[in-house]
C-alpha cells in the first residue's frame, strides 16, 4: 500500500513532459470600435499623419501617438482630436459636445 502510494507520487512528480520555458506572444491594439481615425483617416494603431511626418527623421518613431475616447465612445488620435477641438468642440462623428472619457496609455 505504501509502496503503491510512493509509486503514484513518483509518477505525478515526474511527469513525462514538463515545462521548462514558455515564450507566449500576444498582440495589443487599442480597444476601439472603429480602426480608423476619422480626422486623419489613418488607422489608430499607426501614428497619426502629423506624427508620421515628424518621426521620419527619427527612425523608430516614438509610440506616443495615443488614442482618446470621448463620452460618446468615439475614438481618435489624441493629436488629431486636440487640434480639432480648437476649431469645434464637438465629436466629428456624432456632433455631441466633446468631452474626454479616457486616454490610451
Amino acid at each position, binding site marked *: 500500500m505504501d509502496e503503491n502510494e510512493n509509486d503514484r507520487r513518483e509518477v505525478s512528480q515526474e511527469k*513525462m*513532459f514538463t515545462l521548462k520555458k514558455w515564450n507566449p506572444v500576444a498582440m*495589443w491594439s487599442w480597444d476601439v470600435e472603429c480602426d480608423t481615425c476619422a480626422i486623419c483617416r489613418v*488607422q489608430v494603431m499607426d501614428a497619426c499623419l502629423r506624427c508620421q511626418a515628424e518621426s521620419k527623421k527619427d527612425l523608430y518613431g516614438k509610440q506616443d501617438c495615443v488614442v482618446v475616447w470621448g463620452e460618446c465612445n468615439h475614438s481618435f488620435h489624441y493629436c488629431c482630436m486636440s487640434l480639432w477641438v480648437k476649431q469645434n468642440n464637438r465629436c466629428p462623428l456624432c456632433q455631441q459636445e466633446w468631452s474626454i472619457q479616457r486616454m490610451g*496609455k
Partner: protein
Amino acid sequence: MLKEKGQLRFEDKWTYMRPIVLKLINQEPVSPSEWQELFYDVHLVCLWDEKGPQKLRDYLHKDIILFIKQAQTKVLAQRQEEALLKAYIVEWRKFFTQCNYLPTPFRQLESSLQGKTTAGSSSIQGSNIKKGQNDESIVRKLMLDSWNESIFMDIKMRLQDSAMKLIHAERNGEAFDSQLVIGVRESYVNLCSNPEDHLQIYRENFEAAYIESTEMFYKLKAPEYLAENGVQAYMKFADQKLKEEESRAQKYLEVGSNGVIQCCVNVLVGQPLPVLLAECAPLIKAGETDRLQLMFRLLERVPEGVQPILKELENHIVQSGLADMVAAADVITQDSEKYVERLLDLFRKFSKSVHEAFSDDPRFLTARDKAFKTVVNDTKVFSLELNTGRITGTKSVAPESKCPELLANYCDMLLRRTPLSKRLTTEEIETKLKDVLLVLKYVSNKDVFMRYHKAHLTRRLILDASADSEKEEDMVEWLREVGMPADYVNKLARMFQDIKVSEDLNTQFRASTARHDAINIKILNAGAWARGSERVTVSLPVELEDYIPDVEEFYKKKHSGRKLQWYHHMSNGTITFATNGGKFDLDVTTFQMAVLFAWNQRPHDKITYENLRLATELPDGELRRTLWSLVAFPKLKRQLLLFSPTQTNPKDFTEHTIFWVNQDFALIKNGKPQRRGKVNLIGRLQLSTERSQMEDNQSIVQLRILRTQEAIIKIMKMRKKITNAALQSELVDILKNMFLPSKKMIKEQLEWLIEHKYMKRDDDDINTFIYIA
C-alpha cells in the same frame, strides 16, 4: 634740297631704286646705306610725285612677276616628282622670306595708297598702319597674289599630284622625306591672302586632293583586304589603318581638318557595316572580349553601328541567362542559396564582359540591366501563383517570377542562425546581403519580396533566432537606401523598436513576481506585426493557461485602453521529455506542446486523432500539420510519437488513426542513443495559417489595386487632364519600386474610378481623362 611738287619725277628715282629692289627680291646682300636710301626714295616719290605711288606699285609688280617667272622655269625644269616638289619648296621659301622683308621700305607707299583708297577718317588709317605691314601689307599681298596667279595656278595640279603620289607611296610602305609634302601644304596655307579665311586655298585644293586620294586608296584596298583575309583580320586592319590615318592627318594636314577621317571611317567601317555586324552575335556568344572591344571601337565611329551590338548583347544575356537557369532548374528551385548565387554568377559574368568588351559604356550597362531584368523576372523556370481563392474584382492573376520569394528566403538564411550564417564571417554576410539587394534592384514585384522578408523577420524576432541583431538593423537601412517604399521600411524599423519595448515589459513582469522564471512574454503592436492576420484557437495545457491571467492583470496595470489577443501560433517554448532512456529538452511550438501534454495524464495510452482534436481544440489542418511534425520530423532517427495505421501524408489521418508516445525515444549520435540532449522541433514555425496565407496573397493583390488607385488619383489631381499613354507611364514611374502594374489591372482600375465618378473620359477623345474634383 626740297623742291616744289611736280619737280621730282618717279622715273628719275626708279633708276636708283630698282637695283636695290632687285637685290632684295633675289635675296642678294644689301648694304645699310642702300637700305636707307630705298626708304628715303620711297618717301620722296610718294611725297612729290602725285602719280608716284601708283607707278611705284606697278613697276614693283613687274619686277616681282619677272622673278616669279624665273622661279617657275627652275621648278618646271624638274621632271621627277620629288625633285619638282623640292625645287618648288626652295623657290617658295625664298620668295616667302622676301614677302616679309620687301614690304618694309615701302611702308610709306602703303600709307599713300591706302590714303587714296580709304581717304576718310584718319583713325582708320592709323589703325591700319599700326596693324603692321605683314598681314595687311599691300606689297605683301601684291607679292602673294602674283605668286598665286603666275606660278601656283599653273603648277598646283602637278604639285598636288606629286604630293599625293608620295603619300600613296607612303601608304604602301615606301619611305620619303615628309618635309616635301609638309612644305607644299605650308605654301598653300601661307599663300592665301584672304584675311577672313586664310585656309581657303589650302582647303579647296590641298585638303580636297588629300581626301580624294585617301578615299580612292581605301575604296580599292578595303574590299580587297576583306575578301582575302576575312572579317576578323579586316577589323584589325581597319582599326590599324584608322589609327595610321589619324596620325598621318596630324602630320600632313592642318589642325581641325577632320574630313579625311570621316571619309576613312565611311570607307573602312560604314561600307562593310553589314558584314561586320554579322560577326557580332558569334563574338558575343563566344565571349571574345578582345575582338568585341575592337568591333565596338570601330562601329562606334558610325552612327548606326552601336545599336545592333546593344540588341545582340541584350538577346544574348536573356537567352543564355534563361538557358542557364533552365539547365540548373532542379537545383535552384529547391535551394534559394544556389538560385541567388547562380543569378549573381550570371550577373557578374555579364557585367565582366560589358566591362572588358565595352569599357562599361553606359549604353551597354543599360542593355545589360534590361536583359538581366528579363532573366530575373522570367516565369519559365518557376513561377509564383498569387493564388487568391475566390476574390472579387480581379479575375485570374498572371504568374509571377518566384525570384523575390527566393531572395527573401536567402536573406533569412543569412540573417538567421543557420549553418550557412555560422560558416560565414560578418563581412561575408554583409557582402552577400548587398548581393541580394543588387538582384532585388532588378525585381519587378518588390512587394512580394517585402511580404516574405517581413514574414521571415517576424519569425526571427519572435524566435530570437537572429544571427546578428546589428546586421538586422543595417539591412533595414540598406533596404531604404535601395529605394524600398518608406512606409514599408518604417514598418520594419518599428518592429525592432517594438521588440525592445516588449523586452523591457518582460523584465518588469518578471520582476513583479517571483514565480515566473519559466515565462518570457512578448506583447507586440498589432499594427506593426500582424495587421489583419488570423488567430488560431487552441486549448492550452493547464501548465500554460495558469500564466495568462497574471500577464493580463499585469498589462492592465501598465496600460489602459488596450486589448490583448494571444497569438499562440507564434508562441513556443522548451519542454523536458523524460523517457526510459533519458531526459531530453525539446524546443517546440505551443501547438506541439498542447498535443504532447495530452499524454501527461496517460503516458502509455494510445489516443485517437479524434480525441486529440477534442483535447487541443486545434483546427483540423493545424492539428494534422502539428502531428505530422511529431511523427515524421526529418532530422530525427527516432520519432517522438508513433502512429497507426501508417500513412505517408498527414491528409490521410482519419478520426481513428491512433497515436502514442515513443517510450524508446532517444537522440542518436554516431549511431548510438544518447541519454541527454536537446532538439529543436519548431522547424519553420507556422506564423501564418493556411488561410491567412491565402489572405496574404489576396491582400497583396488588393494592396496593389489600392496603390494603383491612389497613384492614379494623385496623377489626375496634379495633371487635371492627361492622355492614357502619359498616365500609364507616370503610373509605372510611381509604382515601380513596389510592383509593375499590368496593363489589364490599370485598365480595370481606370474603369472603376470612372464608374465611381473620380474621373471621366474626355468627350472629344476617349483616350484622354479628366479629373473630377
